[in-house]
């Protein structure tokens, strides 16, 4: 039980450009196990929101059920949160987003919550390109119900129970790519340097941004033979590149060595800079991204980092052509046709 604080600790007095201190982004005491990967992700979210100068109350954090889905209580205490039912975060977030397009939607889920009971809703929120950040805290198991294998547990991976998983695992990044997500990334909760810029990029992304964060469950799935344990992941990570998030390209001019780096420009002009990239494919090429995941997997490695980015597609609101004003802000006058039109309508019905 700890308060989640980002590793990069700012003095309480330090304020970001929006005038908030880091405290404004923190939440309640975490009740997760000490060392749980999920807590690190919470810390990264806090730090990302602080750095991006977001108004905390303009964020809605929505989750399903599970240890992972509990985390929204532990960050962004000034934001409204919704711990819904198991596997149904996507639909609740979709409704929330329909009601008010102006908030930032941070969806948090687990691998059980998303890849099993929530698979249908996951697929369809991707397909609709809902403008949200979707984070899966992926530990390959059902933490809250005491460690059963989840559908992301790799075949042969061994959890605390000691029985190797027999079924193929579902790769959520590949699913997201397949279903048309605009930003797809995979991270490791133990690697904040990579995670934070990617969360920032996901927040800035217009449309559906998916981050699969491998997040070890220290209590039930952190054995040496678990492919979602700290040890295994650290040893098998293969990164698309070392990543910097640059909020405003006019501001800083970093000198990246030519050829070894590449830049992803986000819709607000901010940039994601990949240094010393090991990924030799075009990040905006879906087919290439899919291949790359497979190729790295064939080498018994896990591809991490930003895997795909493309923000040319309309989001759900764009597709269904809603007005700019959030729907929840339209007044009765704007919504109710009034008595007059009824005369004509009734007449037609005679």
């Amino acid at each position, binding site marked *: 039980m700890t308060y989640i604080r980002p590793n990069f600790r700012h003095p309480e007095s330090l304020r970001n450009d929006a005038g908030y201190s880091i405290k404004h982004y923190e939440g309640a005491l975490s009740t997760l196990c000490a060392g749980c990967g999920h807590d690190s992700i919470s810390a990264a979210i806090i730090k990302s929101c602080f750095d991006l100068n977001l*108004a905390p109350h303009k964020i809605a954090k929505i989750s399903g059920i599970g240890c992972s889905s509990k985390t929204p209580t532990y960050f962004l205490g000034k934001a409204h949160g919704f711990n*819904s039912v198991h596997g149904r975060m*996507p639909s609740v977030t979709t409704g929330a987003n329909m009601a008010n397009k102006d908030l930032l939607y941070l969806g948090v889920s687990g691998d059980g919550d998303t890849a099993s009971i929530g698979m249908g809703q996951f697929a369809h929120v991707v397909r609709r390109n809902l403008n949200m950040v979707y984070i899966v805290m992926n530990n390959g198991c059902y933490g809250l119900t005491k460690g059963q294998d989840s559908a992301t547990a790799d075949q042969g991976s061994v959890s605390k129970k000691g029985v190797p998983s027999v079924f193929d695992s579902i790769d959520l990044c590949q699913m997201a790519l397949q279903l048309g997500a605009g930003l797809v990334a995979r991270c490791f909760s133990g690697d904040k340097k990579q995670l934070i810029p990617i969360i920032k990029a996901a927040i800035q992304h217009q449309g559906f941004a998916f981050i699969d964060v491998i997040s070890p469950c220290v209590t039930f799935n952190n054995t040496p033979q678990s492919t979602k344990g700290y040890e295994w992941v650290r040893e098998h990570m293969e990164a698309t590149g070392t990543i910097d998030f640059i909020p405003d390209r006019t501001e800083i001019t970093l000198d990246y060595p030519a050829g070894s780096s590449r830049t992803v420009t986000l819709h607000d002009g901010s940039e994601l800079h990949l240094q010393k990239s090991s990924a030799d494919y075009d990040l905006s090429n879906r087919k290439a991204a899919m291949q790359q995941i497979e190729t790295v997997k064939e080498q018994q490695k896990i591809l991490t980092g930003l895997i795909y980015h493309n923000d040319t597609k309309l989001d759900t609101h764009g597709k269904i052509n*809603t007005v700019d004003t959030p729907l929840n802000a339209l007044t009765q006058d704007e919504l109710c046709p009034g008595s007059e039109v009824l005369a004509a309508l009734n007449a037609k*019905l005679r």
Partner: protein
Amino acid sequence: MTNENTLSATNDCVIRFANVNGSGSASANNLFSKAVFRLGVPVSAKNIFPSNIQGLPTWFEVRVSEQGYLGRRGGYDFMVAVNGQTMYKDYLELLPGGYFFYDSSKRLPDSYDRSDIHLIGVPLTDITNSQYSDPRQRQIFKNIIYVGALAYLLDMDFRVFEESIESLFAQKPKLIEPNIKALKLGYDYAEKHHTDICRLNIHRRDLNGDQILMEGNAAAGLGAVYAGATVAGWYPITPSTSVIEAFERYCRAYRVDKASGRNKFAILQAEDELAAIGIVIGASWNGARAFTATSGPGVSLMSEFLGLAYFAEIPVMLMDIQRTGPSTGMPTRTQQSDLISAAYASHGDTRHVLLFPANPTECFDMTVTGFDLADRLQTPVILMSDLDLGMNVHQCDPIKWDDSRVYDRGKVLNEQQLTDLSERWGRYLDVDGDGIPYRTIPGTHPEKGAFFTRGSSHDEYAAYTEDGEVYARGMQRLLVKWDTAKTLVPAAEVTSDGADIGVIYFGTSAYSSREALDQLRSTQAMDAMRIKAFPFGQEVAEFIKQHSIIFLIEQNRDAQMKALLVNELAIDPNTIISVLNMDGMPITAEFLVTEIQCHLDQLAVHNPDNQQTTGGAA
């Protein structure tokens, strides 16, 4: 057949059309019933269609009633039998003295040997074949021809048909003349070959006032527009789909921003019913008015989410257009059989507000009321319509809107109110004693009012708790809210004259119940009550208390409304006699009269002095 047996009546008959679906008969049949309406004679029409798209039997029943009885009566006086698959059955179902209209291009087999009915043969196929060469035209005009024949046979003013055709094809004037020609073909043939055979007439009256013809689902969809609903998440299912179709149609008409061409509404066809209600819950939580419409299977699937909305206190507007259950059941037949599953949807101690509209006008009104109640009570409200109401065209009062009406968005704190708050605000704190706490919408205030919504147990300040006492306090407060609900839902409609016998009905049983009551009252005084909502107000309990014999009319097998009444009002079930129709067809007045009379006769035998009757079990 003797003349005495011949059915004869003016503006009082039941005509049944037996067709094949997908053959274009629906529009012809509608043309006919609309003509009756336009003649100023009350009419009701029931479309009895199969659960497929093309090629199966479908029926259309038109009730013409000068007295204004709009339910099913029972029995058919006139059969338009143009479906070979069902013709013999249709033939047998005709009332003695009735009229059997058929396509005489082929002669009737010998088995059609009833001597108590009138045969009216019109060679529809021969006529169309001789007049039209295009197969599609043949099919369409065949239907129009029999309508023309009916116009003659029932002595209807031909002009009203012409006018209908003219207004129907106002956009496609080329079609007017051929349609009128087809009508005439039928009219003329009947006039020539069946002169003065039919003693059923439909003559012009002026009984329909300002009434309109509308489907309940269209009215509910329109109601959602007027109530200011902006978000709809839904999944197709018969017979609820047309609610959303209507909502979309009316939104496109009234809710598109003129300047930008953009929509002041968001309709999402969800991937299933769980997602549909999830969308509604998310949108409602975030301050929009949102709704979904479904039928039984959808309600079952929404059950978990309904429990969340109950416990986390999120407004939900759900329309359940009931069909015949259980399971897939008869998807295109009606029933009132989701009462228990809707009222107590979800595990744990839950209960939800139900509304029971009885006609399209009420579908509109109760939808608007439903949104107000959901916001005020911060809980799910379920409009319990049914296939009969939702998908049939009903004659009803015109839709009205009072421009001074202001939406009741319930206890929502805005930014200023939050700023002004001196005490600590608690999302689940009952400060007014009505069991309803104040809520806030995400994004309202930079510092105050944020809270965590959860389906797990929470204290008054929305914090997670496993303290049994705190949990129990919250659950008890929900009962206080339930009591408040009783005072806010539409009251039952009571007609009381101090009789010993009370008849209770609700929803679409209202039509036939009223007719049955008129008949039964000729020999026996009876009071009546129409229930409009669950939970029940005081008036419901009182009505039951005041009557020693209660008949309760339902369209299900298990007397589900009785279960609700008995359970919620602590009523002795033995005081209630259930009258149950469960075959998926809208209940008929005839059935009601027979059933109730039969019970009364039995009671009379058991208690000759008719004194301390306690009623029989259902």
